[in-house]
């Protein structure tokens, strides 16, 4: 799993690098387009996803100490916070599209939609992973700490990739 974490963050670093490079070339255009984004919403997104990460970390520790019911509760909580993030994201997309900022409208929004969408795909896979986690924790014979930790590691990856996207897309000047 750590192979995935490192390889995937390498690919994302490449995407980010391309984005920052293009940004450096057309700073004013990017800034003007960026001002359409709501930083507050981004902060809320980030905190929701950080909370989901926190919940899944709790779940791992609970599972380790044999408290599987608590672990399952925390896993469901993870999915819940992830759901909040997903809803906020979709709301933001709809808002931007209504404001006329689409994938093809400006260079900044190409990258905005690309990065958020590819991250969203990771998030959707993450829900499948949390499903696996909950299933693991539910069946007595299926409980395997290694799988639990692998699932959590995937979810944390989704989280820290978002932390980077948030800083790069919403905050960077």
């Amino acid at each position, binding site marked *: *799993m750590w*192979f*995935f974490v490192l*390889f*995937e963050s390498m*690919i994302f670093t*490449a*995407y980010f690098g*391309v*984005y920052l490079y*293009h940004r450096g070339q057309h700073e004013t255009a990017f800034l003007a387009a960026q001002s359409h984004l709501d930083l507050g919403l981004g902060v809320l997104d980030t905190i929701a996803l950080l909370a989901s990460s926190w919940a899944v970390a709790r779940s791992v520790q609970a599972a380790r100490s044999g408290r599987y019911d608590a672990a399952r509760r925390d896993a469901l909580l993870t999915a819940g916070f992830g759901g909040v993030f997903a809803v906020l994201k979709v709301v933001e997309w709809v808002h931007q599209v209504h404001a006329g900022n689409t*994938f*093809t409208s400006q*260079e900044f929004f*190409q*990258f905005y939609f*690309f990065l958020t969408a*590819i991250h969203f*795909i*990771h998030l959707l*896979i993450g829900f499948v992973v949390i499903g696996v986690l909950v299933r693991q924790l539910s069946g007595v014979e299926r409980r395997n700490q290694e799988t639990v930790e692998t699932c959590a590691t995937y979810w944390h990856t989704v989280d820290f990739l978002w932390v980077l996207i948030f800083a790069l897309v919403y905050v960077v000047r």
Partner: protein
Amino acid sequence: MRRPTWLDSPKRELWLAWGATVGFYNLYAVVFFLITRTQPPGQPSYGDAGVVSWFASHHDGLLVGMAFIFALGGLSSTSLALITYSIRRMSVSRAYAYAYLLVYAVAAIPGFLFICVAMTAGAMRPDRSPELQRWLYDLGFLSFSGTMGVFLIGSLVWMTAILLDKNRVFPKWFGYLNLCNALTEVVVAPAWFFDRGAFAWNGLVAWWINVFVFGIYTGVFITLLRSMIRREDFGTGPLPDLPPRKPRRSPENAVATAAS
């Protein structure tokens, strides 16, 4: 004439298929990167005149290179046969093996057939109206780059099989590499929206990063298939580790029963 010993090895079919796989990917790379120079791709932003001069400067290479693919492209089937075999060797349902085989059997059509036809048609008649030449140019590159769904689903099928497998056919990290590959395949789709920039069909994101990952992926799976063949014991349980440096050949069951 003495028969080469490998011909009596029970693994001869596997080695033949593996050799053909290596041959095919080398041919593919040489044709697309060196002979036709269609990789890295031409500019999507070319106007009519640009496309005509692109065809003019690539004329001979296109015709010769695509002809080689027309002649030998069918050998691509050997790699998917081996991968299908690898999934069959795992402790998962054969549905995964057959799903992989069929998904990738479809892949040959967008994977090289359309670009070969379109580029040959363009190069054959350079005096065709520039507007139509441009259409052929778009057909070639977009069918080649813009149809990644088969590779997405195919990689996910293989990934799932590897992660569920208990026979240690492939290391788990390779399962995750399949996921990385699948996720970089989908980012080519923006090529349908842009004719310049990072997301166009020759862009940094849609082409360079994707080809970089695909190159690593291909190299890795060819190497891993090799070690799978070396480890194969024709059983149904976990695959043993690699044999010691100098493996002793086992002539028994060389011409054994047909595999079911």
